[in-house]
């Protein structure tokens, strides 16, 4: 379940800012660096991420090997490097549902739901790059808090650029995103919303 939450959090940065509206298609290139206790050196990977509407999330690793991870309302699907497929149905594994619920809440723009799981701090401009705005998400849920210490999201023009996920066991995942399509679609509703408030 926690794994599902963590996956969702990786996209929280931009999805959180999207308000209810038209179906959104977002695509970005990513570079991920994972530092994990037990590993002698960080593991680096890169690929693309795609998110469609409220239904579909796809994480595709291209380097150093092919790997695909797809999340829908009904299931979680993995395609392993040798082509083996693993599917876990939401009916059988509640954590897939947890993830879905979180994503759907995010997509719907329901900040009230998100606020139940995280304390969200808007920390202003990033120290290293003044063009980036820093958001800090702290899990409220005890189970989630046992795995994740904090998530930092850096965004520019309301579009996420960097995500740092700090785990309680000392692990750290750093994700850099370069939007390819859909950034405007994400940006517009939030700007409208902020303009309203």
């Amino acid at each position, binding site marked *: 379940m926690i794994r599902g939450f963590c996956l969702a959090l990786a996209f929280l940065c931009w999805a959180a800012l999207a308000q209810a509206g038209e179906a959104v298609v977002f695509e970005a290139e990513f570079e991920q660096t994972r530092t994990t206790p037990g590993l002698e050196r960080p593991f680096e990977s890169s690929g693309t991420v795609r998110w469609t509407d409220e239904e579909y999330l796809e994480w595709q690793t291209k380097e150093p090997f092919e790997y695909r991870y797809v999340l829908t309302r009904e299931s979680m699907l993995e395609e392993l490097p040798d082509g083996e497929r693993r599917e876990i149905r939401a009916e059988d594994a*509640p954590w897939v*549902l947890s993830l879905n619920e979180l994503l759907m809440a995010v997509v719907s723009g329901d900040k009230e739901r998100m606020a139940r799981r995280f304390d969200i701090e808007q920390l202003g401009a990033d120290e290293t790059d003044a063009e980036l705005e820093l958001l800090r998400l702290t899990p409220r849920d005890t189970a989630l808090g046992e795995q994740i210490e904090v998530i930092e999201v850096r965004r520019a023009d309301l579009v996420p650029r960097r995500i740092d996920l700090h785990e309680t066991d000392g692990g750290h995942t750093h994700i850099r995103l370069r939007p390819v399509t859909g950034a405007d679609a994400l940006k517009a509703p939030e700007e409208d919303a902020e303009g309203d408030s």
Partner: protein
Amino acid sequence: MIRTLAWIALLAVLVALALARTGEEGPLDTDVTHLLPEEHQDPLVAEAMSRNRLGVSDELLVLVRGPDPAAREAAEAVAGILQSEGGVRTPVREDTEQLAELLEDYRFGLLADDRREAMRLAPSASYLDAVRARLARPAPGIGLSIDRDPAGLFADYLTTLPAPYPGFRESGDLWQREAQGETLWLFPGQLEGNAFAEATQIRVTEALERAREVAAERCPDCLVQATGPVRFASEQRDRARLEVLILSSLSLTGILALILFAFRSPRPLAMGVLALGSGVTLAVAFSLLVFGRLNVITLVAGTTLLGISIDYVFKYLVHRSESDDGHRVVRGLLRPLSLGVASSLLALGVLMASPFPALRELAVYAAAGLAGAWLTVVLLFPSLDRHRPARLGEGIQKLLGEIPPVTGGPRRLIPVIPLLCIPIGVLAFVQLPGTDDVRSFQSPVEALLSEDEAVRSATGMAFPEGFFLVRADDADEVLEREAALIDVLDQQSGHRRSVGTTRLIPPVSQQREAHQLVGEALHDPDLIDALKALGLGAESQQRLREDWAAGQDLTLRPEVLADTALADFLNAVWLTVDGRPASLVVPRGPVPETLVSDAGEGVSFIRPVEAMNQTLSEQRAHASTWILLAAALGIPALFMLMLGPRRGMKAALAPLSALSLTLIFLWVSGIGINTFVLMGLVLGLGIGADYAAFLASERGTARAGITGIGLAGLTTLLAFGLLGLSRIPALQEFGLTAAVGIVTAWLCAFIIARPPPGQEMRA
């Protein structure tokens, strides 16, 4: 006077002894399940049914559906009220962290099904893929760190364990899922008390009512639905109580009106109450002495059976209306009264030997009560009743007392009646279909059924109609057979909802295979190099191989987890009786008939209700055979002993013919025979023997005596026949049988047992 004092002293001593025996729990037992038959089959089956019953009967599912966040608030309020006021707790569940701690040492033998399949084909390649996936996945895995479980195999095993409420995710004490624009919040509760105990039912019902009110305040658009055996049991209890109140009021009003109309005096009424009251007192005291506690069902049904004793009162009263000396009346009535009581006790005595607790308790209670009423009439009435006798009204005598005896030509045909009735009655008895069903205590409750259907279809928690019992000579083989069964169930149902031990503890062969496959991978030089390339150093890998080697002799078995947080789960699905292991598999959905009839070696599908009905049926068949034998042999023997061979045999044919006619009615009407019908038959037989004994031994079969029998018949009909109007099948069938039994007993007694004019017995 001495007799009176002796009777009162006996009653007092018995009551004192009974009270002394009563424990802290009090004399009344409200748990109807204590009356159900003990399982007489295989003790393993009995224990499995008991575990299954416990697991199923204490479930309470409450569903709150509506728009969030109000629905969540309402659901939290509902759960809080049920927990604090309703004695409902959240089932103990282990979170993933706890499970991981408990099972960590066994982890190399625990693989998710799809992982095991993949590793069978290529252990090292599959392992390496899993490691890569763990690293590439956009989130860290749960469970152990990467150096202790690089491929995340243990985490996969833990996260793919079946969810208890499919489609729902856990959120504190609640489970939640979205559906068609609303949120469903499920509170799966477990009763702390017995669902069939009145105190539990009241507590839960009141808490649920309050919870609904609070939920309506918090979320006006929400719908709160609840289901569980406790709700049905509670509703049935309320309905039965209301019905019994209505029918008893009607019956009591009718009986009071009849007595006042017959005697035009309240004194007979007081005497009737005294006799019945003494009978009930003796019955309660004696039952408490024998059983320790008295079930409320026994109290109600047994007191109903004591209605037979009103016969004794009427016989005394109608004869007393023609005599100024109560003692003389009793002396004259001693033989017919004693014969009537003896034949009733004979029939009840047979029931006392029944292994069915309900019948046994009922028989002891009714026998003691009848004896108590009889002793009151014989010992107490003459001393207390010293006033001018209450005269029988002319109207009632004309109505009930002027029945002419059968004389002339028709009298010669009387022997034909038993000759025809008894053989056909025996045939009917042999042909009667058994209709025993424990559910006949219940009348359908449509509103609850539809609420139950709504909750269960929303949660996917179909009420299991039965369970599979898996047996083998040793525990390992039980797990093997269970795993094979669960595989078939999963394939046929398309989901993984059935509950069983192997969901958590794979068969030993699978654990050994998993351990072997992982070991093969960890020792593969190519994999060692690949892992090193990914950043897993040689030292880490060496430690991993040492851990694997240390787990080589470890096998996860049910007994290993017996004293852990998983004990509750295991207790519901794993059992050992007399050293024989077995497991229960509870399907949460329809079970194909093919699987029910043949689920594999050592596996049987058990439907508890059917099994209970089968036990009921066997015990009822046993009891009814004995009752018929007692009737066929005991009643003629008793009658011949007390009335002489010729007259006694002739009189005995009356209750036997009445019994036969009632059996024919049950056959023709399709009611069949069951435990409750049997009670009606015993009642009819007792009354029939009573009437026949009275008429055959009555001095002169006077108009008053005949009126007395008519009065007794009418009051018994009012007391029992009205139960034929009940909506509860068991009571309805009992009432109908009793009504037919009483009418045929009355008719047969007059036609067969009544001596022709001039041949009445001299006292």
